[in-house]
């Protein structure tokens, strides 16, 4: 028994996954950048579609996705979860991507673009370190010098990824400003880009930033939902799941997992955001729940801010979700009801990580655990097919898990 579906979605609905020419999804998006960034952003904007749709790019991108990233990633039928939650639950195994998360999909694509544009240096921001590792990885592969900005708080809580970046030859810059987390790492990356405009490509890690980044990253990550679709046809005989669940920090894995299902009238898209110690605790990163429209890092979206328009510090145990904004696509999906966003607390996520480890032998990243935690918040029908985007593996979070489970 499937949920009631609109089997004939209008063309308009179908296009909700792509912004207009100026980068707006409804009222969110755009490019709010100082003049110093204009030439670089404009160069990317006027080239990205043509590049990523070129046969040359597709060939190279797809080869790297297959042989280097390890795609397609499996769509794994999780029997034990299915039994527990009373639905057919599949896990889209982005945790099996090289370097351990979906981030590499977008990094491979953007690095090819950077090379196409003749850039000689790549910079990136990182929260959990997964995007930093992915960027350092592809930069090593392509022999491009790489600088990664990471908040000093995140450096402390995601040590394994810091060691990996260094091993890969990247320079890791500890950011001491502001909350010393992802928001400030992003600020510093942008500042560095302003100061090095000539041949530097800024390789953004999520569906955030000024247009065209959100669209670019979403398109590169859309390989996730594309694979889900063809795998589901094979494995379940249907071309769309009833649910897709994904966590959302900036929103790239969610964008990728939702992409081909957005507005199809069949699939309930569920994003989870980090509630930290609770949406009303003051220590939260539940951007959609607590956010209001505004501008952060070059785009109009929902963000957590004071009534004066100062950006608030986010809080989440998970460095990759510890961000006071969210991608404009998601702000739009939320506003239009095309997706639903649920807040998940630190504790719920930690327990979900433990649960998944024990139930299926898969230790998820803390970020990913937020998506898993949504399972117990939904009411499934027995025939429902739910796909969780298993965005990353938990190797980087073992210390946090140990500390938590020692305490409890």
């Amino acid at each position, binding site marked *: 028994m499937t949920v009631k579906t609109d089997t004939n979605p209008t063309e308009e609905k179908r296009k909700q996954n792509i912004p207009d020419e*100026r980068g707006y999804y409804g009222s969110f998006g*755009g*490019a*709010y*950048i*100082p*003049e*110093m960034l*204009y*030439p670089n952003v404009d160069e990317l904007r006027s080239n990205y579609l043509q590049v990523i749709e070129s046969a040359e790019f597709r060939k190279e991108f797809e080869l790297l996705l297959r042989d280097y990233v390890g795609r397609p990633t499996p769509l794994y039928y999780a029997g034990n979860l299915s039994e527990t939650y009373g639905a057919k639950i599949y896990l889209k195994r982005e945790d099996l991507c090289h370097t351990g998360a979906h981030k590499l999909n977008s990094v491979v694509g953007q690095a090819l673009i950077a090379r196409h544009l003749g850039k000689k240096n790549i910079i990136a921001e990182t929260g959990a370190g997964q995007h930093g590792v992915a960027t350092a990885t592809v930069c090593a592969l392509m022999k491009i010098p790489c600088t990664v900005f990471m908040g000093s708080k995140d450096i402390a809580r995601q040590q394994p990824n810091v060691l990996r970046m260094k091993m890969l030859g990247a320079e890791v810059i500890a950011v001491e*400003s*502001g909350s010393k987390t992802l*928001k*400030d790492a992003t*600020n510093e990356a*942008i*500042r560095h880009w*302003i*100061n090095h*405009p*000539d041949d530097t490509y800024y390789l953004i890690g999520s569906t955030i930033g000024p247009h065209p980044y959100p669209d670019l990253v979403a398109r590169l990550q859309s390989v996730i939902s594309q694979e889900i679709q063809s795998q589901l046809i094979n494995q379940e005989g249907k071309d769309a799941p009833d649910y897709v669940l994904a966590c959302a920090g900036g929103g790239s894995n969610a964008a990728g997992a939702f992409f081909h299902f957005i507005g199809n009238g069949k699939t309930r898209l569920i994003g989870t955001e980090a509630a930290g110690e609770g949406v009303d605790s003051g220590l939260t990163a539940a951007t959609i729940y607590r956010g*209001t429209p*505004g*501008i*952060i*890092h*070059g785009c109009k979206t929902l963000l957590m*801010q004071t*009534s*004066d*328009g*100062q*950006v608030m510090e986010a809080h989440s145990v998970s460095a990759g979700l510890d961000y006071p904004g969210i991608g404009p696509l998601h702000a739009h999906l939320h506003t239009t009801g095309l997706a639903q966003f649920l807040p998940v607390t630190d504790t719920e996520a930690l327990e979900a990580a433990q649960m998944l480890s024990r139930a299926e032998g898969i230790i998820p990243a803390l970020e990913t655990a937020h998506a898993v935690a949504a399972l117990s918040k939904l009411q499934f029908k027995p025939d429902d097919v739910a796909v969780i985007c298993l965005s990353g593996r938990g190797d980087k979070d073992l210390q946090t898990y140990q500390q938590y489970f020692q305490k409890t």
Partner: protein
Amino acid sequence: MNALQELFQNKKQNLLSLFFTAGYPQIDSTAGIIEASRKAGIDFLEVGMPYSDPLADGPVIQQSSTVAIANGMTIEMLFNQLETLKEKTSIPLLLMGYLNPVIQFGTEKFMEKAAACSASGIILPDLPIHEYREEYQTLFEKNNLSPVFLITPHTSDERIKLIDELSNAFIYVVSSAATTGKQQDFGQTQEAYFQRLKAMNLKNPLIGGFGIHNRQTLQQAWQNLNGAICGSAFLKKLATAADAGKAIEMLKEDLGLN
């Protein structure tokens, strides 16, 4: 015509402007800085509205913003302060800041309040030009406020012409593609850039900023452009000097103006 436009009608060369962050170093420093600037013959001022995430700014302005916010500075409060000062000061003022706090304040209300405080213009570096034209231009005009846009060595001729078209006070010539406060002397890049601008015969005066901190940088701006804005270097003096007057004195010394 606003005060700033009037200034440019009367003075075409060697203009000197200061940037400071409202609420820094103290919550009520603004009045003193404005008064001391007037006394010291500063031509006009940019009042920075502090923002939590000033991504075009270097450490000095970042730090001043953090302090100002911690001091309790808000747009509301700044307007209240400027309101009480507007009778006393004749020096043209511009407000400068990031778009988000302005939007949260309410764009229309912001423009009206700015005008009510006798501000001459507003600089919003992250306001896209197309959005300015579609949503902001009429508001600026209605309130007799000058929009000021930034250009950098990487800005195309075409875009500079568009900006010249849209401007009615001056064009903010960012000395190099860099965040504020980079302390390097100007070199051939700047020289070439300034020459390119001269050759374009723009209708608006050109005021150079970002990196003016000593005699060399000031003179190079003055020789090629109509004036210069000094920000980070001034804030550094404010941090250590006994009062704003002393700070300006020390700054002038650095700039070779004593």
